């Protein structure tokens, strides 16, 4: 875990049965924080820092939002402190086609298209919020969960309360701040920290 200055943190590591991993995708869809070197392009962030293959970015991630605006050119849209970056596969419907990054109908939503912004003169480390949806979360979600994500304590608490029964059945092991914990214990924990660092490994990953 990398500690972010000024933010108290807790660390939760879960090892779960492989079939349980998809329930965590909801957290990835709501948005989670990751550490990053800022002041770079979306492409650089995703490919060079997050390890996403360039072909995957071109072919599978068809709809990209930066701060709620559609990104048409991943090389000229730049990521800064507190940016919110959302990644999706190609979407159905006329609206889906219009929102597609760099699509031929881009002109039909010009008001919500992301303008080019200049890269920051100096790179610095910080956090951005990432949202992963649909095919993208299915395909990239397990890797991000394995590496670890930062989420707000209250979101984690509400998530555990909603899913405690399946978590109880499918959680093989849990460690909170390095100490062994049970799902019941986690459910009754009040998460005081603003941000919690959550890592989820499946037993297949562990094996």
């Amino acid at each position, binding site marked *: 875990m990398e500690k972010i200055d000024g933010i108290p943190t807790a660390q939760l590591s879960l090892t779960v049965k492989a079939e349980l991993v998809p329930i965590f995708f909801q957290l990835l869809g709501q948005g989670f924080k990751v550490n990053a070197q800022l002041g770079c392009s979306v492409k650089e962030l995703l490919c060079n820092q997050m390890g996403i293959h360039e072909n995957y970015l071109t072919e599978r991630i068809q709809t990209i939002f930066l701060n709620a605006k559609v990104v048409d050119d991943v090389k000229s849209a730049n990521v800064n402190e507190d940016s919110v970056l959302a990644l999706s596969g190609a979407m*159905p419907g006329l609206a889906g086609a219009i929102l597609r990054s760099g699509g031929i109908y881009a002109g039909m*939503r010009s*008001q919500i298209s992301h303008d080019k912004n200049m890269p920051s003169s100096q790179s610095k480390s910080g956090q951005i919020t990432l949202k992963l949806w649909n095919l993208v979360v299915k395909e990239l979600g397990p890797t991000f969960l394995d590496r670890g994500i930062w989420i707000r304590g209250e979101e984690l608490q509400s998530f555990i309360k909603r899913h405690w029964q399946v978590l109880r059945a499918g959680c093989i092991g849990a460690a909170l701040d390095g100490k062994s914990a049970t799902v019941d214990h986690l459910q009754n924990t009040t998460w005081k920290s603003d941000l919690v660092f959550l890592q989820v490994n499946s037993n297949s990953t562990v094996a």
Partner: protein
Amino acid sequence: MDKILRINMGASGGPEVKTEPLGDYAGLGGRAMTSGIVAKEVPALCHPLGEDNKLVIAPGMLSGSAAAMSGRISVGCKSPLTGGIKEANSGGQAAQMLGRLGYAAIVLEGKPKEKTLYKVFINKDGVKIKEDNGLCMLGNYDLVDKMKAEYGEKVHCISIGPAGEMKMSAASIAFTDMEQRPTRHAGRGGVGAVMGSKGVKVIVIDDEGTAVRTPADPEKFKAANKEWVAGLRKHPVTGEGLPAYGTNVLTNVINEAGAYPTRNFSVGQFEGASKISGETQAELENARGGEGSATHGCHRGCVIRCSGTFYDKNGNFLTKQVEYETMWAHGGNCGIDDLDAIAQIDRLDDDFGVDTIEMGATIAVAMEGGVAKFGDAEAAIKLVKEVGKGTPLGRILGNGAAVTGQVFGVERVPVVKKQSMPAYDPRAVMGIGVTYATTPMGADHTAGYAVGANIMGVGGAVIDPLKPEGQMELARNLQIATAILTDSTGMCLFIAFAILDQPETFQALVDLINAFTGESFTGDDLMAQGKAILKCERDFNFRAGFTAKDDRLPEYFKKEPLAPHNVTFQVSDEDLDEVHNY
């Protein structure tokens, strides 16, 4: 499909059945057929619920054949909601069955003199019509159960619920799905009210003893169909995204874009969106299990299978997988983020026979008018039940958002030509606003669908979509192409993505049409047919009294900035008037 079935419900001595050759309507299917008949035979100034209006039900050009995805059916009439021409379409089994029985259209004409309900039975031996007032005010589910008990487990139904009988302007026509459930609806424009005005509660279809329609060139057809299916399966939208998450996969994306109309179009993002997203819905459906839970087709021959089945907490069937527009209309647009409550409302809508988009938009307008609080799911359920019962409040709501807004003094009423807008705010996605404003159907998200870039430039110079005139041209060509390529062939709208991205798949569709019909259509020919459909529809509307002023969005879209982007609809009236200038 070589004949048209006409049933004169107003004939002296009871309904009169006549079967005619296609005549002037030869070669038409789906919307081309419904709009062709309505524009030619219905007086544009007639009362939509009167004897001069006609209800036309037409399978697509390829319906009843082995062509994949060809099971859509169109319903046309003069709309009681908009006052203009209407085509609403649906999935379900009826298109394939009518195609195999040889009917290119069923036309309900005239009006019974007495208040009598009829059921129509169609099979290979002909048509039988019986009075059955015992069906009065039955919901679609009970009605279909009765028909199954009477006619057997293999029949399928086209029916109306209580809303259609009460001639409400939001009334839909239900089509049974593969499991004989009335979950598929021609929802828009009050087509159910017109069926109700004809006194027809249900049309029961039995295609036993019929065969799949034979193509003109079977070998070429088989090869084109193979290529067609392969193209649909390999595309990430039609082959992966839609089967896995259904149309509701759009919720997160539209919400992120700030284009998700929330609490009656007051803001563009809903804080509860992730709770009702396609991803969350699929996860819930998969966890609850059951047959066809998260991936299911709406008709035989569907290879995309974007639908599913929603089981309640106890594992009992509740409704089909709630689609994006329904999830939005009864969800974020009413401030509701409870999946089970929204699914329950969807079931009620289907049972009473009302358009889910119109009902959701109407309830949101009613909420703004103080009838209930935004976010109150129980209150929303009660309001829909008022519609089913036909209480005075229910009658108001059942006649749509425009009427409800007027009754409760609400200014923010999101309608065009009195039809409610679907789930995309036109201030954020202005191109969709252009379609809402200018389609002859009233606000409709399916009127200008995405079709191949390879045909977008047909007959004209290369389009620059970043210029206003390019936007108009795109909107125009989308409407033209949609009218012919999906609405008239019987093809599902969702084929659009595969033909948008894969030229070989677009070619496979053209080959499929040509191999089936024996014609040699080109892209230009198809676009010309699409233009002809739009022209005849617009001509009908002008004769019905519509002017350019009806091709406008409500004024508040130009004045009220939409959060989070604080944008307004900025397309000028002059530009809107150019859309159909061809």
